């Protein structure tokens, strides 16, 4: 059984008239990855996996072959007893395996793993890309097993979703929210990060770049391994704020940046719930910001109660407090974790805006934004991001953020910078 703990990092002291409380709530789960440890599902049929493979014409023979190898690597990671299905997608979507007489999903065993591998051999590149249809089929597959609580999909694409309207894709994504989680991977340099990020973000999954087809197998293996280790099916973050307070935002800030604010569902007038998806043994940090009516000096107030809730039962709780003080040495301190994550969030936004401006041909805006990003990365000592930025811009001066757009910057480097922007480094205490 998984154990969850919550820690709060904040400066609870507010100056006279101060209203905004920021806190990082760190939630850590242990003992959640019971399933992978035993090698077989403790409770057969309690988890379901769908692998969505792009078989559009742009993938080509080599791409589809590599995707097939990747799917097989993923199959090797799926523990016996897990229900699974493989879907090939182009302008439409079809189930490659299990065969039609077996139903939409079949339990993993050495026999079905072998059959699935042979079915994958038959995949051919052909047609366009309409990811909405793939997701819709995945949803229909998962809906055949309503009793299965842990539902996960892997989506692989290599191109722009030109086979349907953006509205149609959005509608499909919306219909899948809450039905299953989806990790998305883009291969090559012809796909659009914002499009795929939209899918992954809404479906509580990750998004990343696979630069070359040969690297797909390793990526699929690690993605599926991670999914198998998630022993806690689904949970939600519950945030209570006092009467009269305003919840400014709730963001996941580690391991990746994800603004949860718009995903709020109402538990009661003072409490909102935000889906977190499945948990393995891991640590996630959330940034909660609350605006309170200022109280008189010396007063104290609970600013927020942040709980991780499994099936409605709180399993971990962090209390965010506010105390008004006239002691400047207390009130002027900014908590290091809050400061660091605020900086990382600004860096991510700046990079994404800069790359979007560059793609739109607004070179002056792009230069300014990416220059600011270089400056922020320098200030926060984020060397990894500085290295990635260097591949897109020539840096004249880190401190002032003076940069020039690189003439021959490769598309892959831009994609890589974009996908990496939302990955944060954990703030240590």
């Amino acid at each position, binding site marked *: 059984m998984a154990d969850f703990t919550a820690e709060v990092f904040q400066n609870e002291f507010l100056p006279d008239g101060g209203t905004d409380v920021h806190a990082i709530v760190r939630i850590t789960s242990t003992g959640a990855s019971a399933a992978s440890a035993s090698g077989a599902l403790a409770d057969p049929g309690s988890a379901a996996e769908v692998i969505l493979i792009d078989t559009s014409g742009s993938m080509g023979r080599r791409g589809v072959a590599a995707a097939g190898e990747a799917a097989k690597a993923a199959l090797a990671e799926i523990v016996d007893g897990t229900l699974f299905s493989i879907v090939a997608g182009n302008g439409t979507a079809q189930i490659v395996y299990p065969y039609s007489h077996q139903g939409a999903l079949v339990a993993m065993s050495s026999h079905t793993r072998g059959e699935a591998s042979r079915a994958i051999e038959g995949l051919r590149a052909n047609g366009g890309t309409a990811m909405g249809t793939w997701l819709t089929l995945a949803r229909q597959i998962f809906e055949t097993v309503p009793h299965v609580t842990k539902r996960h999909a892997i989506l692989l694409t290599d191109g722009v979703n030109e086979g349907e309207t953006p509205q149609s894709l959005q509608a499909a994504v919306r219909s899948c929210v809450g039905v299953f989680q989806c990790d998305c991977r883009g291969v090559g340099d012809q796909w659009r990060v914002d499009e795929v990020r939209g899918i992954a973000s809404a479906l509580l999954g990750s998004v990343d770049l696979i630069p070359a087809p040969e690297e797909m197998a390793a990526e699929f293996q690690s993605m599926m391994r991670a999914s198998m280790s998630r022993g806690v099916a689904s949970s939600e973050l519950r945030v209570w*704020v006092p*009467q009269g307070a305003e919840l400014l935002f709730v963001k996941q800030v580690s391991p990746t940046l994800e603004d949860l604010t718009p995903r709020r569902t109402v538990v009661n007038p003072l409490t909102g719930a935000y889906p977190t998806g499945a948990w393995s043994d891991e640590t996630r940090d959330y940034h909660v910001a609350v605006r309170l009516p200022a109280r*008189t*000096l*010396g*007063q104290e107030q*609970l*600013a927020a109660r942040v709980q991780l809730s499994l099936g409605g039962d709180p399993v971990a709780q962090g*209390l965010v407090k506010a105390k008004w*003080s006239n002691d400047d040495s207390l009130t002027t301190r900014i908590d290091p974790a809050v400061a660091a994550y605020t900086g990382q969030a600004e860096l991510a936004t700046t990079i994404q805006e800069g790359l979007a401006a560059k793609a739109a041909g607004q070179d002056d805006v792009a230069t300014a934004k990416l220059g600011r990003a270089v400056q922020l990365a320098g200030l926060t000592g984020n060397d990894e991001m500085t290295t990635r930025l260097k591949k897109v811009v020539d840096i004249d001066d880190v401190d002032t953020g003076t940069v020039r757009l690189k003439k021959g910057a490769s598309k892959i480097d831009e994609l890589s910078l974009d996908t990496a922007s939302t990955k944060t480094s954990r703030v240590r205490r």
Partner: protein
Amino acid sequence: MTDFPTAGAPDPAPVSTDDRRQGEARDELPPRQCPACGTPNPADSSFCEACGADLVVTARASAGADPGATEATGPGSGDGPVMASAAPQTAPAGEESPLDVGWTGAVPVAPEAAADDELMCHACGQGRIVDGYCDHCGTPPPNPRDHFVESPAPWVGGVCDIGRRHTRNEDAMALSATEAPGSRAVLVVCDGVSMASDSHIASLAAATEARAVLDQPFARGVGTPDAWAATAGRALTTAVTRANEAVIAAVVEDVPNPPSCTFAAAVVEDGVVVAGNVGDSRVYWLPDSDQEPAVQLGRDDSFAQEQMVAGVPRLEAETGPHAHSITRWLGKDAPDDLTPHLTTMTATAGWLLVCSDGLWNYCSEAEALRALLHGVAAGTDGTDGTDGTDGTDGTDGTDGTDRATPTVLAQALVDFANEQGGRDNITVALARLAGRGSTTTSEPAATTAPVEGDRADG
């Protein structure tokens, strides 16, 4: 709950169930959770390590309501058929008696309502206290250390308040009094030095220790006023010494700023008053009659006082840059000479006031303080529901000071200081003395001249 009367119950059934319950209760005891801030503390703690709340007082208060609630409501919870004939019966609230068969203790009236009330939020009235905060408005329940009231007798009362600007109440107060007006009272006020750590714990330890010492009646000696003054002076000096030891013992760790506090105490015994102080907490005598001057008994150990002695006007000295620096205090780094400034006097009709600088910062002159007291007394309606009998001798005060209870007036003075800004913690303790009407041991002639007696112990 260990002294709950179950041991002598006539049949074993309630004993066994109670034993079990007490066992459970003992299991819950070790981490003594602070009712104010929720911090777990070691079971033997007297004060919360986090917020300084008095755990003993609150534990005693809740022990008064809880055990009765749980133990009186469980008649014979299936402890076997043998006991069926002697199943504990509980009389209606108020009619129970130890002579009842299977008496299980007094039944508190509506114990559940009382328990609910404790959990209700006092700030918004809509939420309940969960994890130490209201689940509706987020306000923690008031820290009992931040504001407390003592009314040991109708003629003695005081209020200790955090004020408006400080985050912790480092003032402390300890009062005691016997019922008959003017008979015997002890008023102690200690002001923790805010530069030091844990001064709120130290000051309360000092005040309660001093009260314990001064609660012992003074030896009569040969019965002369001089003999009494000498005994009383020795008792006060002893109280300071013991309070000092309590301050040192309050915090065991070797901290860079060991806690320290001031000391001001007054003892009334049959209409005679002895007052003593160390530091800048004060005792005032504020007689009713305008014919008699209002005076501060004793003097401050402060930089301001030294300046006044050197000729600087009071207002200037008390508002100067180091006005609040004290020259003597109780604590580990206290000066060697802790002899209090002692005064003995026989009281006429009037008010004995012991306070911290949280009050006199806003009204320092004794005459001004008397006027203020009479002013707030005229402003209060004089009734706080306790039907204050203060032993007035019939002299018709033109204001309300002989009708308002000490606690109501003390609160009014605290309110005044808060309205002025409440920059410091505020403590006001008052004793109403009625002069000749109730004092028999003193001669009227001796009443007008308070005697400064620094060497009374010698």
